[in-house]
C-alpha cells in the first residue's frame, strides 16, 4: 500500500480509480486531437501500419514524407500566388469580408455570396497566406465533409495532411520499436523477443519480395556501388532498400565465412561480378587500370569446375572479355618470372628438410642458379630447364662466356646434378603443364585457378606457391587493378602462410578476399585468424556458421537499454521497473546461427547489415562444361618418363579439347593424331 504526500495510506481501489480516470482523460484527449486532425491521423495510421507490415525502419517513412515535400511546395506556391483580389472583385459584395468557402458551386451563384476560392486559399500578405494555408485547408476539409463531399474533403486536406501523417506514422513506428527494443513495451517481458522475431520474418519477406521484382536490384547502382542484395536489417549502418558497397571496399581486403550450402558461392560470384563490372566502368572512364580477378579455388574436383563454369557466365555478363580456367583450359608460364625470383620460386617448390639437409639445399640452390643464370638467358620451359641440369653443358656454356667461376661451380657439383634433375623431373610431372605454357595473367580479365587441395595437397601447395609468385610478379607492373580471391586457402598454405600472402598483397596493392567454411578454416592458427579478420578493411561477410563468436567480438559493441519489470502479485507485470544501459555486441550471434540460405551479415566499421543476397545467373544458356582433369593421367605434351618435348618458338597455351566431348576416336582414324 502506497502512501500519499501527507503520509496517509492510499487505498488501492481509490488509487486504481484515480489511475483509470487519468487514463480515460488522456485517451479522450488523444482521441479528440486525432479526430480533429483526422486526415493526418489516418495517414499516420496507414503509414505506421505499412511500416510494421513491411518491416521498414522508421527512416524510410521519414524519407517517404520528405518525398511529399515537392507536392507541398507546389501547393503552397499556388496558395501564395492565387489571384484572390480578382476573384473578390467579381463575387463579393461591397463591405463584405472575404472568407474561403471551398468549392461549393451553388454558393458561388448566389447573389452577394463570397468568392469561390480553392481550399487553403485566402486573403492576406504572402507570408500569411502560406502560414494560414494548412489551417484554411483544414477548415475547408471539414466544410466539404459536412456537406457530404468526402472525396473533395480528402483532396482538400491532402497536401498538408499526407506528409504530416507519414511523418507522424514514422514517429509512432519508431516509438513502438524503441519501446520493444528497450523491453518497455508489450504486455509481458517476453513480448519484445516475440516482436523482434516477427519483425525479422517480415523484413526477410520484404527483402525477398524485392529480390523477386524484375530489375529491382541491378549489379551496379547508379552511383557505381556494387549491389549485393536486399537489406533485411541494419545496425549502425544506413538502412536502404538495397545493400550496396562502394567499389573501393572490394579493392580492400575482405573475409567471407560460411558453411557449405549457405550461399557462399552465390555471394562470391556476386562480389566478383560487381568488382568486374565496376572496375570496367572505371576503366572505361579512364580513372583506373583494367581490372583483373584471380580466383584460387583450393578445393578442386568436380564442384570447383561447376563453380568455374558459373563464374565464367556471370563474369561474361559483367563485361569480362574472357575467363581463363586454369589448368583445364589455359596455362601460365612460370618461366616468365624474373631470373632471381625464378630461382627462389623453383627452390620453394621443392621440399627441403632441416639440419643436415641444409647442405643439399645449398647445393641445389647453386645448381639451379647456374641453370637459370646461364649466359644464354633464363630457361623458357621446363624441358629447357631440365636439359640445362647437365654439368658438361653448363661448363661449356660458362666457359664460352669466360665465366670460370661458373665452370668451377658446375664441376664441383657434378655428382649432385642427377639428384637435382630427378627431383625437378618428379616435380614437373606432378605439377602438370599448367605452369609450363605460354600464358600470362594479362591474357584474360579473370583467371579461375583450380588447385586440387583435397585430392593432392602437396601438388596444390606447390601450385599455390607458384601462382602467387607469378601474380606478385605481374602485379609489380601496376597495369591492372587486381582482386585475388582465395577459397579455403588454409588447406594449401603450408608453404605460403596466408598472413604472408596477405601482407605481400597489401604491399603490392592487391586486394585479397579470403573465404572459408568456418572461422577455423581461415588460417592455421588463431593468431593468424585474428590477424586476417582484424585487417579486413573491406568488411567481413558472415553467412550461417556455428561459431560466429570471434567475428562478433571483432564487430564491436553498442549501447543497449535493458529494462526490468516488476511483478505485481499474481496478476502480471505492472508498469514500473528500472532501465539501465549496457553494451551488447553489434553482431547478434544468434541471428547469424539462424541465417537462412542466401542471407549474410556484412560487418563493417562497427556496424552490421543483414542482407538477402541476390542470385546472379549468367544469361548464357549453354556453355561448355569444364573437363575434369585427371591428375593421374599426366598433362598433354609432357612425357612422364622425362623425355623433353621440342622447344616451342612461340607462346602456345596448353590447349585441350575441354568443353566438348572427345572425338579423337573418329578423327584419329580418319586423319591421324592431333596436331598441337
Amino acid at each position, binding site marked *: 500500500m502506497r502512501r500519499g504526500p501527507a503520509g496517509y495510506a492510499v487505498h488501492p481501489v481509490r488509487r486504481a480509480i484515480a489511475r483509470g480516470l487519468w487514463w480515460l482523460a488522456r485517451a479522450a484527449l488523444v482521441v479528440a486531437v486525432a479526430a480533429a486532425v483526422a486526415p493526418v491521423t489516418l495517414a499516420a495510421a496507414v503509414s505506421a501500419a505499412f511500416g510494421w507490415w513491411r518491416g521498414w525502419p522508421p527512416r524510410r517513412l521519414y524519407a517517404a514524407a520528405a518525398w511529399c515535400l515537392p507536392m507541398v511546395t507546389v501547393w503552397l506556391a499556388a496558395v501564395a500566388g492565387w489571384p484572390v483580389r480578382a476573384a473578390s472583385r467579381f463575387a463579393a459584395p461591397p463591405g463584405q469580408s472575404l472568407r474561403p468557402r471551398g468549392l461549393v458551386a451553388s454558393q458561388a451563384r448566389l447573389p452577394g455570396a463570397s468568392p469561390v476560392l480553392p481550399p487553403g486559399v485566402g486573403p492576406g500578405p504572402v507570408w500569411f497566406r502560406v502560414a494560414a494555408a494548412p489551417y484554411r485547408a483544414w477548415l475547408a476539409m471539414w466544410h466539404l465533409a459536412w456537406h457530404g463531399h468526402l472525396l473533395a474533403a480528402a483532396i482538400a486536406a491532402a497536401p498538408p495532411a499526407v506528409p504530416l501523417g507519414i511523418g507522424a506514422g514514422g514517429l509512432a513506428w519508431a516509438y513502438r520499436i524503441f519501446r520493444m527494443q528497450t523491453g518497455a513495451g508489450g504486455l509481458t517481458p517476453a513480448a519484445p523477443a516475440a516482436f523482434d522475431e516477427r519483425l525479422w520474418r517480415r523484413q526477410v519477406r520484404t527483402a525477398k519480395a524485392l529480390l523477386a521484382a524484375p530489375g529491382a536490384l541491378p549489379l551496379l547502382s547508379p552511383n557505381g556501388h556494387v549491389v549485393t542484395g536486399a537489406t533485411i536489417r541494419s545496425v549502425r549502418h544506413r538502412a536502404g532498400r538495397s545493400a550496396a558497397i562502394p567499389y573501393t571496399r572490394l579493392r580492400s581486403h575482405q573475409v567471407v565465412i560460411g558453411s557449405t550450402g549457405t550461399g557462399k558461392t552465390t555471394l562470391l560470384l556476386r562480389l566478383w561480378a560487381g568488382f568486374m563490372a565496376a572496375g570496367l566502368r572505371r576503366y572505361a572512364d579512364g580513372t583506373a587500370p583494367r581490372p583483373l580477378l584471380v580466383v584460387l579455388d583450393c578445393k578442386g574436383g568436380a564442384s570447383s569446375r561447376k563453380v568455374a563454369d558459373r563464374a565464367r557466365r556471370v563474369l561474361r555478363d559483367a563485361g569480362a572479355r574472357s575467363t581463363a580456367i586454369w589448368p583445364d583450359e589455359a596455362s601460365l608460364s612460370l618461366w616468365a618470372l624474373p631470373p632471381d625470383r625464378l630461382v627462389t620460386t623453383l627452390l620453394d617448390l621443392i621440399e627441403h628438410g632441416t639440419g643436415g639437409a641444409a647442405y643439399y639445399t645449398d647445393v641445389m640452390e647453386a645448381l639451379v642458379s647456374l641453370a637459370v643464370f646461364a649466359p644464354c638467358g633464363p630457361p623458357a620451359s621446363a624441358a629447357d630447364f631440365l636439359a640445362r641440369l647437365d654439368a658438361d653443358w653448363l661448363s661449356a656454356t660458362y666457359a664460352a662466356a669466360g665465366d670460370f667461376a661458373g665452370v668451377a661451380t658446375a664441376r664441383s657439383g657434378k655428382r649432385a646434378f642427377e639428384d637435382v634433375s630427378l627431383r625437378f623431373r618428379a616435380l614437373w610431372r606432378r605439377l602438370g603443364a599448367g605452369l609450363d605454357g605460354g600464358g600470362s595473367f594479362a591474357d584474360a580479365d579473370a583467371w579461375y585457378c583450380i588447385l586440387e587441395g583435397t585430392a593432392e595437397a602437396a601438388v596444390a601447395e606447390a601450385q599455390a606457391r607458384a601462382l602467387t609468385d607469378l601474380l606478385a610478379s605481374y602485379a609489380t607492373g601496376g597495369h591492372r587493378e587486381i582482386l585475388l580471391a582465395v577459397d579455403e586457402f588454409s588447406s594449401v598454405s603450408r608453404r605460403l602462410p596466408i598472413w604472408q600472402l596477405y601482407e605481400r598483397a597489401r604491399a603490392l596493392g592487391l586486394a585479397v578476399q579470403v573465404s572459408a567454411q568456418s572461422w577455423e578454416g581461415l588460417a592455421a592458427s588463431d593468431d593468424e585468424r585474428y590477424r586476417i579478420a582484424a585487417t579486413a578493411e573491406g568488411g567481413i561477410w558472415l553467412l550461417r556458421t556455428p561459431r560466429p563468436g570471434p567475428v562478433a567480438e571483432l564487430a564491436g559493441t553498442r549501447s543497449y537499454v535493458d529494462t526490468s519489470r516488476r511483478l505485481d502479485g499474481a496478476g502480471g507485470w505492472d508498469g514500473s521497473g528500472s532501465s539501465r544501459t549496457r553494451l551488447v555486441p553489434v553482431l547478434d550471434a544468434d541471428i547469424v546461427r539462424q541465417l537462412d540460405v542466401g542471407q549474410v551479415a556484412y560487418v563493417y566499421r562497427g556496424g552490421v547489415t543483414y542482407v538477402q543476397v541476390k542470385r546472379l545467373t549468367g544469361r548464357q544458356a549453354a556453355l561448355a562444361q569444364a573437363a575434369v582433369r585427371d591428375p593421374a593421367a599426366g598433362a598433354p605434351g609432357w612425357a612422364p618418363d622425362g623425355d623433353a618435348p621440342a622447344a616451342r618458338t612461340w607462346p602456345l597455351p596448353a590447349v585441350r579439347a575441354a568443353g566438348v566431348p572427345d572425338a579423337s576416336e573418329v578423327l584419329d582414324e*580418319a586423319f591421324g593424331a592431333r596436331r598441337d
Partner: protein
Amino acid sequence: MALSARTKVTESESRPSLPKPTAITRNGHKMTNRNNPGFGHGPGLAVRNADALVFAADMYGIQLDQLAILTGGERSARAAVSRWRSLGYAETARLSPGPPWLWVTRAGLAACGLAYPPAQPALSRLAHMRAVTAARLALEATAAYRQAAPFWRCERRIRSRHGIGKTAHLPDAEVHWPDEAPVAWAGECWAVEAELTRKTVARTAAIMREILSRTGDYGCPAADAAVPGRPPRHARALYLCSSGALSTVLRARAQLGPLGARIEVRDLPPGALL
C-alpha cells in the same frame, strides 16, 4: 545386282512419289541418309551409283581416282562415268595433272534434284576441291561415321541455298551428327576447313572466331548470325592442314585462348594434295 538404265526408269516411274528418308538435325536441317537403300531412287535419276553422282555434284567436281573410292573400284568408276556421260548427266576433262575431273551437268543436277548453278570446276579451286573431297572420303570411311550416319553439308549446298555473297566466309563443309547417334558428340555440328595455303595468322584467327562464335545458320538475318547468349552453331571446327599451313593454323588457334579448345587440327589425309 546391276540394273540397266531402262529398267530403273521403269521402276522409278512406277512409284514417282516415294519420299526420301530424312531426319531432322538439331539445327533444323533435313538429313538424307546415303546409306539407306532407298536413297537416290527419285524420278529421273536413272543411273547406277546414284550416291556417287550426288557426291560429285555436292563437291563441285571430283577426280576419277576419288570417284573410284566411292564406286568400289576404278573399273566401276569408268563404267559409271561412261553411263553418266551417255545420259548427259556429267562431263569429264583433264583439268589438272593426274586423273581427269568429272562434274555434273545441268541435266545431272536436275536428275539429282539439286538446284546448284551448273559450272565447270574453276581451275583455281581444283586443289581445294580435291582436299575437301579427300577429307570427306576419309571421314566417311571411319566406323563411327558409318554407324552414326551424319549429314555432310557441303559448301556448295550452303552457298546455293542461301545465296551467300562472295565476301562472307563459309566453311568448306558442315557435319551434322544426329542426336540419336551412338557417339559421345551426338547432336553436334562441326565446321570443316581444309587449309592448303598459308594465310596470315590474324586472318586465320578471325575466321576461327567467326566460326566458333556463329549462332545462326548461313544465310540467316545478320542480326541472328552471332547472338550472345545463344549456343554456338559449331561445337567445334575441324582444321585439316597441309604441312605448309599447319604452323599458321596452330598459332592462330593459340591466339584464341580458351576458345581454341574447340579447334581440332589434323593433317590432310593421304592423297589429298593435287
